[in-house]
């Protein structure tokens, strides 16, 4: 009876996993052929990988600059969001009553808002204020939807922290800046790091907000590039090896982190 249940559970998990990974495996397999369209096999070849790395693509450089834009935007947005969100979290933590509730309510809005609403509303604001849209507006928009997650990740660390050690540092002659850097920041760091990582990945993956705030200057991130490509009818074939490489990097990083933390836990138990 017990083994039957176990077997069923195992089979169920693996079937769902197989479905979840089917499209990714599909992309990876077809990255090793030269055909333009996604499901077309014209014999094994690593030419797509070669042309991806040499930059000799038909669509000269469009894809490469889209990847660069995606990374730069995510890096700037996540960094600004982490700084602003941490400072804001310290402020919110020290608030009481109505003020605190208002701040928490405002902080929730971007998280509940669907991407498309965030995108459209910012678009209308930029139109209304006659701000020309491009790199700056996209980064601004990304900061808007990233910061709440940093606040949410840092707040619990503040309540875990002993409030007296910051005061003690001040009493012992530290300047507020020193107390912040040497006492406060180290205890908030885990929350800041998870906030940064969350912001970074959400910015990388964003499509709708970028789509509405990038203006008409031809700025592309990976998502908007793929969207435009698909609407034109033919995907840039080099996207297949690019996606395969991105997936393998993430897989390696996640497995590494998990195996290491599992080892740490085992060591602690011993």
């Amino acid at each position, binding site marked *: 009876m017990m083994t039957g249940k176990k077997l069923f559970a195992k089979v169920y998990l693996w079937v769902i996993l197989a479905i979840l990974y089917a499209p990714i495996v599909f992309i990876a397999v077809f990255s090793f052929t030269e055909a333009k369209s996604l499901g077309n096999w014209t014999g094994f070849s690593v030419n797509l990988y070669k042309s991806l790395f040499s930059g000799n693509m038909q669509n000269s450089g469009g894809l490469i600059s889209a990847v660069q834009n995606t990374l730069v935007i995510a890096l700037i947005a996540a960094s600004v969001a982490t700084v602003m969100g941490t400072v804001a979290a310290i402020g919110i933590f020290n608030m009481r009553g109505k003020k605190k509730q208002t701040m928490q309510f405002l902080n929730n809005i971007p998280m509940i808002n*669907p991407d498309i609403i965030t995108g459209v*509303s910012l678009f209308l*604001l930029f139109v*209304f204020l006659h701000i020309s849209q491009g790199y700056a507006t996209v980064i601004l928009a990304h900061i808007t939807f990233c910061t709440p997650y940093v*606040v949410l990740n840092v707040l619990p660390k503040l309540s875990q922290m002993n409030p007296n050690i910051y005061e003690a540092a001040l009493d012992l002659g530290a300047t507020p800046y020193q107390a912040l850097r040497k006492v406060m920041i180290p205890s908030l760091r885990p929350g800041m790091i998870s906030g940064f990582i969350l912001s970074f990945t959400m910015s990388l993956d964003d499509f709708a907000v970028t789509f509405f705030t990038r203006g008409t200057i031809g700025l592309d991130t990976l998502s908007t590039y793929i969207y435009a490509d698909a609407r034109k009818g033919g995907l840039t074939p080099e996207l297949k090896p690019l996606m395969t490489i*991105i997936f393998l990097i993430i897989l390696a990083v996640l497995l590494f982190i*998990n195996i290491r933390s599992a080892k740490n836990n085992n060591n602690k138990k011993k």
Partner: protein
Amino acid sequence: MNKRSSWALPYFIFMVLFVVLPLLMVVIYSFQDSAGNFSMANFSKFITDKDSLSTFALSIEVAIENTLLCVIIGYPVAYILADKKLNKSAVTVVLFILPMWVNALMRTLATAELFNMAGITLGKGTLLFGMCYDYLPFMIYPIYNVLNKMDKSYAEAAEDLGAKPKEVFMKITLPLSMPGVLSGVMMVFMPTVSTFAISEFLTNNKIKLFGTIIQENINNSMWNYGAALSLLMLAIIAITTFLQGKSSEDTVDGGAI
């Protein structure tokens, strides 16, 4: 009042400028005609336009169906992952979240292509499958979290007192995991009701969802109508958030007994 509460001031100003003000813009634009005069024309256009109304209804229908599908498929996954007897490895949990890191548009295109190769015509069926595929991790993760942190002694006590496994699940585990289900429902319903690119790819542009009409209007400079449609979507979001808040209060009360 502690002085450090003023540290939140820059963020407060930032949010007023880039969260509150933009939403105000949506309201202002939706009550104006293209010349900038006050008008209800956008809303009367929506109510009299059969296409918009049916798209609106279809979007909500698809979102509800997709959310249900995700609960039905995702709950057992979360349950198995959280059960130490059935799953010992933390890596399996990571495997379920990993696909989310691959660009969603690219995965959706590949899913659509797989359907093409299998000879399945793109339509509502493939739309539901593809959406469920995209949002399933958002359902699994919150349920898994709640189940994982749940105090196992409740279930054990029920067993000791003679409850059958089915009864333990229906009367203890399921009610206690409702907060996770509810946040999963929010995390799936919200993006599904507002999605646009994914639905275009999965149906070959045959089925339009509400997000697509918003995008088309905004991109064709019909800002006022686009804003009015966005306001309607905001209303749906507000209602679901309110309902979720209410029902999670209820389950917390019910679960505590």
